[in-house]
């Protein structure tokens, strides 16, 4: 497979994406091209009007202006202006990636990241011997992935909790001696200069989620297909955004995920033997940097005007540093568990990358898309359904490979006990209870934790969940209290004599990670 260092310059990518766009436009009628361009101009003008011109580079404003004039003219003028917009978008998306700096950064970064994770002093970024790899626990078929990565393009699809996810996974892959990946990162993430430095040099490309126009979405998809075609291992979060409520993703965005099957069919049509495999990954943090903001956001959706969303913790460099130092200085704080790799239709694959059926028997995956003469038969509706199937399998893998941690179990038990005490209140109302109404007898909480831990063990035996829980219920609660102490502005769980006070919003957030496993009944 191609090395990320060979990633082509922006001009090459731009030409490739323009070719793809042009091909698409050829199938459009004049009216459809008009509508396509009008959608871009309208949505972008409106966005720029609302958000101001600060972030819009002059070249982009000029391209939009040209497009506005072209829309009144003929098909050729509209196509040319669309191509210009594709070029501008490509510059933006591909902008931060530099093969030469990546090469240097890949040598310097382990030490620099290690320093960030231990001292958070930017002046001491170089020359350390601490190994943060030992703090990130990696599980799953790592050896199998190393072998598969040699002959196949891998698409990692992790759960998404925090903005730290992508750099952490990038680093974890490096530590596991897995080849580096390219990944899409929201434009907002580049606002933190320290993280921006790391991300862009670890293969991040820019995704501006504020741009909702069809052309931009198509360019992003084409960029993804082009990357697969060129054999670059890729990472993207199929949930689309960080899980606001803390729950494991149960719905995935199918747009980018669907590019996998498109790229695979293109390579079959071109007679290439490039196969693309999907690797679901489950991330589990004992603490989440942005927990307070995220749960506030989730509750604001539920409670509408009762909550105002505050600034994200990720935008504060000091907070990030303090969090990483705290989290990673505790043993076993971050878990990354790889699921079994899947083909683009959602079947598991063996050690050689061949697809297998539910009984482990080999199948010819080309039969999904080829007719009886072995030719690829294109069918977008069918591919949509295949992507839907793949998404379902990824979700199943997320749940089965989720690692239950003490903070999640303790928070889940406490939140469920609060629910039982206040059955008529909704989550928003429960989160607004007075502190004295949120206190639980320690002994009862321990009993509940014990029942949940037992059930998790049973589920683990059936491969329905994974666990890294310490010993008995007392150990679990002690470990959770220790981890919760000190980082968040409000406490998730705090000892008050022989009672435990529940910081309800955070308990809801951390406990939500365990919803859907049927554990609720055990808290009665």
């Amino acid at each position, binding site marked *: 497979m191609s090395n990320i260092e060979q990633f082509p310059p922006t001009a090459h990518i731009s030409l490739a994406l323009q070719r793809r766009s042009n091909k698409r436009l050829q199938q459009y009628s004049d009216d459809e091209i008009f509508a396509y361009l009008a959608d871009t101009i309208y949505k972008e003008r409106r966005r720029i009007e609302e958000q101001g011109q600060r972030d819009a580079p002059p070249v982009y404003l000029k391209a939009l202006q040209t497009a506005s004039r072209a829309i009144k003219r003929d098909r050729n003028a509209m196509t040319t202006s669309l191509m210009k917009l594709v070029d501008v978008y490509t510059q933006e998306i591909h902008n931060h990636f530099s093969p030469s700096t990546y090469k240097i950064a890949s040598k310097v970064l382990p030490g620099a990241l290690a320093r960030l994770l231990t001292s958070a002093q930017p002046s001491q970024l170089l020359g350390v011997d601490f190994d943060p790899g030992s703090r990130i626990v990696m599980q799953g078929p790592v050896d199998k992935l190393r072998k598969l990565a040699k002959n196949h393009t891998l698409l990692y699809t992790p759960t998404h909790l925090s903005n730290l996810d992508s750099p952490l996974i990038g680093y974890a892959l490096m530590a596991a001696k897995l080849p580096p990946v390219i990944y899409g990162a929201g434009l907002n993430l580049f606002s933190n200069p320290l993280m921006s430095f790391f991300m862009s040099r670890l293969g991040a490309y820019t995704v501006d989620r504020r741009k909702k126009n069809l052309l931009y979405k198509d360019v992003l998809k084409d960029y993804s297909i082009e990357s697969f075609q060129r054999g670059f291992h890729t990472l993207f979060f199929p949930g689309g955004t960080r899980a606001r409520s803390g729950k494991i993703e149960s719905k995935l965005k199918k747009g980018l995920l669907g590019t996998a099957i498109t790229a695979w069919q293109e390579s079959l049509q071109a007679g290439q033997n490039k196969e693309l495999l999907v690797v679901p990954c489950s991330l589990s943090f004992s603490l989440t940097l942005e927990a307070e903001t995220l749960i506030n956001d989730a509750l604001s959706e539920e409670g509408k005007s009762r909550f105002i969303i505050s600034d994200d913790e990720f935008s504060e460099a000091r907070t990030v540093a303090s969090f990483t130092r705290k989290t990673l200085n505790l043993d076993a704080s971050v878990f990354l568990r790889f699921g079994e790799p899947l083909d683009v*239709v959602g*079947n598991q694959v063996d050690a050689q990358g061949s*697809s*297998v*059926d*539910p*009984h482990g028997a080999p*199948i*010819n*995956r080309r*039969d*999904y898309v080829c007719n*009886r003469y072995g030719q690829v038969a294109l*069918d977008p*509706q*069918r591919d949509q*359904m*295949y992507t*839907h*199937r793949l998404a379902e399998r990824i979700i199943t893998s997320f749940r089965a490979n989720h690692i239950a941690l003490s903070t999640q179990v303790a928070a889940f038990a406490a939140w469920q006990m609060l629910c039982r005490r206040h059955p008529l209140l909704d989550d928003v109302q429960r989160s607004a209870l007075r502190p004295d109404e949120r206190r639980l007898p320690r002994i009862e909480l321990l009993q509940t934790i014990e029942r949940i831990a037992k059930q998790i063990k049973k589920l683990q035996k059936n491969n329905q969940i994974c666990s890294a829980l310490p010993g008995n219920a007392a150990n679990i609660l002690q470990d959770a209290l220790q981890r919760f102490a000190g980082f968040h502005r409000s406490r998730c769980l705090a000892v008050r004599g022989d009672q435990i006070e529940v910081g309800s919003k955070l308990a809801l957030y951390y406990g939500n990670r365990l919803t859907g496993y049927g554990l609720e009944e055990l808290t009665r």
Partner: protein
Amino acid sequence: MNIGIIGSGKWTKALATLVAEAGNHPRIGYLEKPLPGFPGSPNLASVAKESDLLFLAVPPKNMRQTILQAKLGPANHILIAARGLEPQTGNWLSDVITQESAACRIGVLGGPVLPDEVFHRRPTAIVAASHYAEVRKRAQRAIHSAICRLYTSSDLRGVELASSMVEALTIALGLADSLEQGIGVRGVIVTRGIAEVTRLGDKLGANAHSFAGLAGIGELVSCAPKHPGYIAGRNLGMGKTISQDRQNNLKAMLALASQHQVELPLIEAVTAIALGKLRPRLAIDSLMRREATAELI
């Protein structure tokens, strides 16, 4: 098109007749003895491999075994021509296929097709539901003819659920006739039965229109004295028992409803009678004495 049909008996013959009527070549995959008048093979895997569309017309209890024997895979386009849940597990038949094979282009048939009427070339209609447009198109090409209109639907779960519930509701119709409850009660069973299935369908993400379609109301309205479910219901009313498979299907429906916390009073009553837990007249009495409620708020 080459159409494979795995099954035996009148229903398989009716399907083969419809397929031939539409100008296609049916080939029967049989388990015990060949079907007279149609080419066939006991080698289910070869029938499956050579078919552009494969009908599975075996009873739900034999579905899993048949799938394994037919060695279904990625290339297959499949239509389930059986109704009900898998009695042993309560699983949807479409799920049984994905549990046992890598096939995913699956659809399901539903509607008021009665074999004897097909043999007499009487007009009928059927619905083929699948998430895959190509399966729907192939189904239409396989069956749509001068004697059978084939309608398509993308609501696989809705049609699968409607067919399963109809199986239970036809028992209720036969039972009511056997107990001479009058013609009015048929209307009650059909409408309240559909109300029950709609409640459950809502939880399962099915489209309510499917229950008003061929696989739901269509089949219930045409429930004739020769309908197997109806016959089973009549027998039940006369104090006889119904087959273990039918009992298991009823239990599986109730388990599904309980899992989704949906009440199915009519199906519950039929099940209680079928399992010998409640006398029919007592069941009717308890249904009538349920708390008064609204049809529409």
